[in-house]
């Protein structure tokens, strides 16, 4: 049997991928709610709300799963993050609370414009800020600028995450989530709205490319990241595949093959997450905490793997049933492609 700690790390990466593809797109929906303009703004917002209402809570649970696996299997990594990234984590939590509550308040509120408008703004604002914070946390873990000798408040609790690289990862995450949401929404809307999200998806895709470049350039501050992203054996095929997926998404959007675009965009973001995970290996927190150095006793890991396996057998069919019920509404699937 392969090393159980390694397998659980893989499980966490897969759960994180699911969170990015599903939960991430829900955040992205909030971003487009914030940016909804023009006469069709109410309809844009209604489309977003209809698409995420039945699924956002389930999509959110991926994050909880990642955290519970992290503190069970890699308690030292969890302790480390909790201490050094206390501030961005706490801010993320406030964002999560405000976003979820505001969404349900708007959905079940009295429906008058002032009430909906106010809570809609809280929902949209929190949906925009939270991904940046999540990205910053990932960036900080990747960069690993934790100084064990540090003693001042600044160097212990601010310096690890207030770096150009971490902040650029934050905005990269925001753009990627908005991009995913726009691609997904092309399938959920009527023709006019769908066209609008198609244009936005293309723009966000281009912006994601720019952000990826910025992140890569700023990774000069974290030489190990750039090194592992460029030199290792898997680097070139992975970048080629990610680029191909990005290109395919753009082409499919252009040709209004929205189903194919959805698959390609999801593949693109998944490849980015996996690329990050590979660059990170074997570290959970770069330079400080590895999979091995932080893992729980073997019997705990084996038991947790069994729980995960049984859980997956129950969970995955239930999830696929949920998505089959609330999948794309077939309102508009692109009619003028041949």
């Amino acid at each position, binding site marked *: 049997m392969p090393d159980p700690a390694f397998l659980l790390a893989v499980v966490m990466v897969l759960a994180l991928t699911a969170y990015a593809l599903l939960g991430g797109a829900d955040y992205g929906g909030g971003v487009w709610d914030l940016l909804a303009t023009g006469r069709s703004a109410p309809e844009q917002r209604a489309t977003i709300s209809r698409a995420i*209402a*039945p*699924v956002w*809570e*389930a999509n*959110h*649970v991926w*994050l*909880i*799963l990642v*955290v*519970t*696996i992290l*503190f*069970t*299997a890699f*308690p*030292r990594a*969890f*302790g480390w*993050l*909790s*201490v050094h990234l*206390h501030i961005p*984590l*706490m801010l993320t*939590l*406030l964002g*999560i*609370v*405000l*976003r*979820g*509550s505001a*969404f*349900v*308040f708007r*959905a*079940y*509120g*009295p429906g008058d414009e002032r009430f909906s408008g106010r809570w809609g703004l809280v929902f949209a604002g929190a949906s925009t800020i939270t991904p940046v914070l999540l990205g910053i946390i990932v960036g900080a873990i990747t960069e690993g600028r934790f100084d064990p000798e540090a003693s001042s*408040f600044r160097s212990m*609790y601010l310096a690890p995450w207030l770096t150009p690289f971490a902040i650029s990862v934050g905005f990269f995450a925001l753009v990627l989530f908005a991009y995913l949401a726009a691609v997904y929404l092309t399938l959920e809307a009527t023709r006019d709205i769908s066209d609008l999200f198609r244009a936005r998806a293309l723009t966000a895709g281009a912006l994601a490319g720019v952000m990826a470049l910025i992140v890569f350039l700023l990774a000069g501050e974290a030489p190990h990241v750039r090194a592992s992203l460029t030199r290792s054996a898997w680097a070139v095929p992975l970048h080629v595949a990610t680029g191909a997926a990005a290109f395919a998404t753009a082409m499919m959007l252009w040709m209004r093959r929205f189903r194919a675009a959805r698959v390609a965009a999801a593949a693109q973001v998944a490849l980015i997450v996996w690329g990050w995970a590979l660059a990170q290996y074997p570290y959970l927190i770069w330079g400080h905490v590895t999979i091995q150095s932080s893992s*729980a*006793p073997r*019997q*705990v890991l084996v*038991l*947790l793997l069994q*729980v*995960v396996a049984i*859980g997956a057998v*129950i*969970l995955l069919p*239930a*999830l696929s*049933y*949920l998505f089959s*019920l*609330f999948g794309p509404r077939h309102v508009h699937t692109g009619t003028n492609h041949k």
Partner: protein
Amino acid sequence: MDSLLAARWQMGVSLAFHIIFAVIGMAMPVMMVVAEALWLRTGNATYIDLTRRWAKGTAIFFAVGAVSGTVLSFELGLLWPRFMEYAGPIIGMPFSLEGFAFFLEAIFLGIYLYGWDRVGGRVHLSAGILVAASGAFSGVFVVTANAWMNTPAGFRTVDGQVVDVNPVAAMLNPAAGAQVLHMLMAAYMAVGLAVAGIHARLLLIGREQALHRSALTVALWIGLIPALLQPVSGDFAGRVVARTQPAKLAAMEGQFETRARAPLRLGGVPDVDTRRTPYAIEIPGGLSMLAHGDADRTVTGLNDVPRENWPPVVFVHLAFQLMAAIGVFLAAVAVWGAWLAWRHRVFNSRPFLGILVLSTPLGFVAIEAGWMVTELGRQPWIVQGVMRTSEAVTPMPGLVVSLVAVTTVYVALAVIVAALIRRQVIEIHP
């Protein structure tokens, strides 16, 4: 305010807030599916109206409970990183299981709330039943983890190192059974009686009789059966505490002196300086009887616990008295209700409806008080006898900032949720 106190306050505020939503998220779906089953069976439109109202209530409470629960899962580390590094491998298992149960709950709640016209009646009802069942499992797992903090099991410590970790034995710790039973019953009792109280009030002021009668009937079944049995589970829980956490029991009872034939105290205010509990009505031998099943048995008092290991005696005693008094009162209400139901006079008894109205918040008050007994009664330990709360706290300074932020957000959310429930679930719209 020092770090430890700020962290304890933040954890306390977060738990006190979340527990209300968690409990409603567990019990409300049960009422919702009972109403739906009655509708499917009778075709009576009142029940479908009720189902939809309770479904709306469930949706609001579940969403806020989901996000406030997320806050807690992170706060375990943000506030108590040393505790999680120590305990994560031992009690992470029930949290992971809870994660899966919660996942199922979210999935089937999505299907239930938004699938009315997409799935058949039976499938819809089954989705609701799965929501209720996963909610109960979530509660079981989380309380199991808490029970471990009271009666840690499933590991050994050799030279300061944790060895022989057995997560299953940790889950099956001595307090788990009693705590789980007591908490689950409290949840159904509190929610059932709160809903009953709301509808009793509307009946008394003469609104929509048919709807409120149906609502009251379902709510009373859900609330009164556990109310009747809760004193029994409380007695069971008390015996476990007596056996495993004598200092907590002594604080609950204001018992300073170690003695045989220890009295049961009703009321009273412990004085930690004179080590006496004046102003109490004492039932001779009552505590020995309840704790050990024999009035002549010895009960350990706080005098035999080192002073630095005392919990906050006054708070624990008063919180326990409050919880127990409410428990006894609600059990009496349950007996009265059963007698009226037997004579088919529930809806005609204005005094009974009046008592139900007064009882609306009592189950929740008892839950909060009970958790204060559990958590404050374990202090100064975060893991009983193993790790002190002060050893577990984060080195991060300035926690008072996040305490203020969390408190402000939660108070605001509570006000809005209350207003929404009032408007969307309780009121009748023409």
